């Protein structure tokens, strides 16, 4: 194997191994008529702590065994109790207005590559997430461990911490550390439109986001002072960034998204830009189909000028059992020196009980330029207590 090929194989492997994946919104819930992340999550860009409504939905409508579970009465504004609540309600009302979630994701990974394989047991996530919401204001923070990656030590990290205000009429603003809104936020942080476009697990920015809902439209604009991790580690990598996302809900089961992003140059990277479109529709209450296509408009250090396309088709085969198929492509259009990557992802997600998610994923990644393939099996127990 040549050195170049080895590096490409390593890149594919590391892309899968990655590190912590934040809990994310599930675009597949478009099939349940949920086009917006904020129906179930505190964060306007999705992912992270579930609201009381999101916890209830996870219990009553998503888990295999929760269909007949108890629920607060209609009109209730209180938190869910029992199985739906933090630590299954063990703390009762002791937390007052503070909402907590504990997320952990023990996983096993097996990566097969030419000439060998790698097995790894890892705890992909261990994060405590908290939020307080009152009179339109939300304070939100995570605290946890970032698993060891590339020989580094495990360390403390707060992926998100921000304060936001949301008016009933639709206008909202937040400031702090968060992942900018762009395209579809796939649950899998290694999806090509996340991993290759700086929307990965630790790509949050310090910035300000302004959003507004106008009828069926949602506009989100983020002005960032730079990636949060670069504030901590490398001043020369800080760069002003601007991200915009516009979503139009054509029907409760059909959504169109346009996105654009600009990142100024750093000591290492030239300025870069992205523009993309996504379309999702759910022809039945058990099937959702999302497709996102992005174009990178500027030369970037990691992959050059490129086009990325991701499709995810999700089908609820049985209550709480979702099957996913996701073909993905990253291509530079044949520009010498840059690789064309193709991926086929098959996944089964079982939600047997509230906030228990057992997932098995099979990735087949192929570097078309160097004709190298890897396959990865990821088994994970995602606990969201």
């Amino acid at each position, binding site marked *: 194997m040549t050195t170049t090929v080895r590096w490409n194989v390593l890149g594919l492997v590391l892309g899968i191994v990655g590190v912590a994946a934040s809990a994310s919104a599930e675009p597949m819930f478009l099939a349940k*008529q949920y086009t*917006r992340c904020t129906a179930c999550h505190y964060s306007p860009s999705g992912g992270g702590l579930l609201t009381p409504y999101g916890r209830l939905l996870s219990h009553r409508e998503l888990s295999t065994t929760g269909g007949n579970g108890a629920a607060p009465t209609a009109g209730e504004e209180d938190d869910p109790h029992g199985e739906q609540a933090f630590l299954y309600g063990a703390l009762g009302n002791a937390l007052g207005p503070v909402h907590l979630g504990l997320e952990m994701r023990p996983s096993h990974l097996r990566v097969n590559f030419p000439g060998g394989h790698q097995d790894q047991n890892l705890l992909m996530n261990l994060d405590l997430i908290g939020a307080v919401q009152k009179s339109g204001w939300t304070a939100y923070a995570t605290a946890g461990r970032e698993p060891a990656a590339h020989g580094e030590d495990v360390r403390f990290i707060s992926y998100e911490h921000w304060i936001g205000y949301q008016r009933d009429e639709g206008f909202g603003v937040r400031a702090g550390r968060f992942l900018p809104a762009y395209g579809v936020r796939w649950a899998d942080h290694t999806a090509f439109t996340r991993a290759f476009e700086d929307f990965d697990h630790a790509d949050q920015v310090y910035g300000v986001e302004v959003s507004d809902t106008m009828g069926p439209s949602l506009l989100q604009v983020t002005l960032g002072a730079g990636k949060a991790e670069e504030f901590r580690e490398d001043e020369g990598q800080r760069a002003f960034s601007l991200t915009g996302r516009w979503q139009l809900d054509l029907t409760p089961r059909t959504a169109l998204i346009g996105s654009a992003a600009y990142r100024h140059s750093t000591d290492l990277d030239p300025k870069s830009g992205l523009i993309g479109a996504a379309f999702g529709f759910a022809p039945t209450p058990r099937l959702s189909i999302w497709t996102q296509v992005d174009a990178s408009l500027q030369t970037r250090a990691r992959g050059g000028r490129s086009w990325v396309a991701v499709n995810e088709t999700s089908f609820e085969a049985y209550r709480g059992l979702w099957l996913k198929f996701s073909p993905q492509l990253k291509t530079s259009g044949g520009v010498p020196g840059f690789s064309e990557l193709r991926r086929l992802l098959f996944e089964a997600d079982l939600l047997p009980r509230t906030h228990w998610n057992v997932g098995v994923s099979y990735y087949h990644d192929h570097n078309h330029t160097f004709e190298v393939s890897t396959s990865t099996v990821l088994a994970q127990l995602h606990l969201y207590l």
Partner: protein
Amino acid sequence: MTHNLRRSLRVVLVVSLSVVGTLAAGGSWRVGQGEVSVKCPLTVGGSFDATTAALTGTLTTSTARPAALDGNLAVDLRTIDTGIALRNDHLREKYLEVDKGAGYDQAVLSEVVLQGLNVDAPLGKGSFTGSLMLHGVKKTVTGPVEIRQGGTAWRVRASFPVNLPDYNIEKPRYLGVGVRDTVQVSVTFIATQS
């Protein structure tokens, strides 16, 4: 033009004339296949559809009022479906209060008056006003309507907004998520001569 094509055109012409002729004579039309869809915008953004196919009724061209249609359209609110069981329960029992019986278990549209359409041959686009009985309250509603001919039947599509507080329906709120005050009702149905 082939013989078969000429014959087909004659059939279409005869059918069309018979429809228009019947309407002009004050015919009675029964709602057959239909659907009511209510788009409910959420306070947190996005929306969901509540739907039912339980639409019945009869409309008759009025001899007394040229632009009016006698009769009514009724929707069985016990069958309305939002795709989520708990939401169905809340909608039907807590907010629409269908168990209260008459006046609550159905939504009834009556006293329909067409505007911008010739009631004798009401094909095309126009508007309508009508009286909607919902949650024990009767209010006037208005909106666009489109009527097309499909064989010997009418294909009708109409929509109108409903402001929930006008009908004394409590603001739907649950665990921080709610439905905004105004929902949009869309009605499609095929009316056949009875």
